[in-house]
């Protein structure tokens, strides 16, 4: 063996050793950093809204992005009435405890301290809009369902709430205050969003939120609040039952 070859061999071995050590060191540090990042994220104490603050920021980032590309013109795919199921699923009963107070009125808050009351007949007097769409639950199931009611945009127009329509959010509550949602105004003004008092062409059943519920096909079911008692307007996010329990506030489809 020549000394030339011997030198080649030594330099190659050194090269192999050097590159191996460097690569595996970086690899090891990378693994440690990944584990540390995961533990940091996973072990963050959940904030009051039931989720790690960083993940909440992630959801808000998505909300921001997908609000930008949201268009009121895009509709949830319309279906025929005969496609609608007769066995409409009942999934939640928060805010639905006990019998409905017979003196029920819808309270509309124009601004804090400035409210007015409506009976269900006041609402039924408006133009009726029917919506047949594929209702989607955040859990993963979906059902084609048929609803009737008053377009929220028509409702705002009828009661001269143009100024309120310029605000960012609508808040809604059940009579006992146990269930409550906040929805962004662009979604509320979408033409398929209705204050609903009919299901399958008949009066809205008790367990489906009689006398008045929200149907908003651009949102998951968690926003379709039943037995609405109060409607108010705000530029800040109104409290939202499921958002306080770790779910996405936007919940848009």
């Amino acid at each position, binding site marked *: *063996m020549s000394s030339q*070859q011997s030198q*080649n*061999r030594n330099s*190659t*071995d050194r*090269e*192999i050793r050097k*590159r*191996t050590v460097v*690569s*595996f060191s970086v*690899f090891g540090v*990378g693994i440690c950093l*990944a584990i540390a990042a*995961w533990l940091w994220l996973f072990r963050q104490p959940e904030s009051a809204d*039931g*989720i*790690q603050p*960083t*993940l*909440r920021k*992630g*959801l808000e980032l*998505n909300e921001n992005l*997908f609000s930008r*590309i*949201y*268009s009121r013109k*895009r*509709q*949830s*795919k319309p279906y025929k009435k005969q496609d609608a199921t007769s066995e409409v699923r009942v999934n939640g009963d928060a805010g639905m405890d006990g019998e409905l107070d017979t003196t029920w009125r819808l309270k509309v808050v124009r601004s804090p301290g400035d409210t007015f009351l409506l009976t269900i007949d006041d609402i039924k007097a408006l133009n009726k809009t029917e919506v047949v769409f*594929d209702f*989607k*639950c*955040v*859990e*993963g*199931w*979906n059902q084609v369902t048929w609803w009737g009611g008053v377009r929220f945009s028509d409702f705002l127009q009828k009661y001269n709430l143009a100024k309120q329509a310029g605000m960012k959010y609508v808040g809604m509550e059940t009579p006992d205050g146990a269930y409550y949602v906040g929805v962004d105004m662009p979604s509320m003004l979408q033409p398929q969003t209705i204050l609903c008092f009919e299901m399958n062409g008949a009066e809205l059943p008790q367990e489906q939120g009689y006398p008045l519920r929200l149907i908003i*096909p*651009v949102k998951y079911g968690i926003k379709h609040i039943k037995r609405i008692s109060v409607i108010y307007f705000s530029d800040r996010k109104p409290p939202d039952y*499921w958002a306080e*329990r*770790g*779910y*996405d506030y936007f919940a*848009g*489809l």
Partner: protein
Amino acid sequence: MKRIVDKHPLAIRWFHWINFPVLAVMIWSGLLIYWANDVYKLGWGDTTLIKFFPQSFYDTQNIPSHLSRGMAFHFFFMWFFFLNGLLYVLYTLFSGEWRLLLPNRHSFREAWQVVLHDIRIRKAAPPHKKYNAAQRIAYSAIVVMGFGSVVTGLAIYRPVQFGWLCTLCGGYEVARIEHFVLTIGYVLFFMVHIVQVLLAGWNNFQAMVTGFETEDVKETISPPTEDNT
């Protein structure tokens, strides 16, 4: 005497090792979402072959109900999965690596020979460059699957805003099934991948970290030219 044979470019090693934990988190959080309404099964008529998942699995694994956590993680890590995959595809296109990766007109015939060789029926494997025919097909398919996960994922994430995409995927329910089936595909890919890596040995594995393999050369001949075989 040994010589260094460069195999995996640095960028590809980074993409690979970032994708591994990110995909793991996506699958885990995806399962948390799926478990909120676990209706999928494999079978025909009244016969069920496999239920996703069997009751015994739930009984033994103590599966908690964490839909909100699943969604929060899934819609956070989806960005890392998407961006890492996108960068990988762009790198592969612009670096010319795609030439070593995409199946060619021989690949589908040769892939059988590779499989026969792997299960010890055929003695010799067909000659290949960086990737053999079966690898070319598998590693290209996994990129197509990743693209499919992003598309079907977006379709079920925003089925109204991306209604056209949802329709293109065959509708909301079909898109959900496709998204799920792709995930099963990753799990199967992973299992085969691990077995192959174990069988291929250390020199092959460490190349995914260091980027090179070492090769013995006869002492007396002058160093051969690089040909990356």
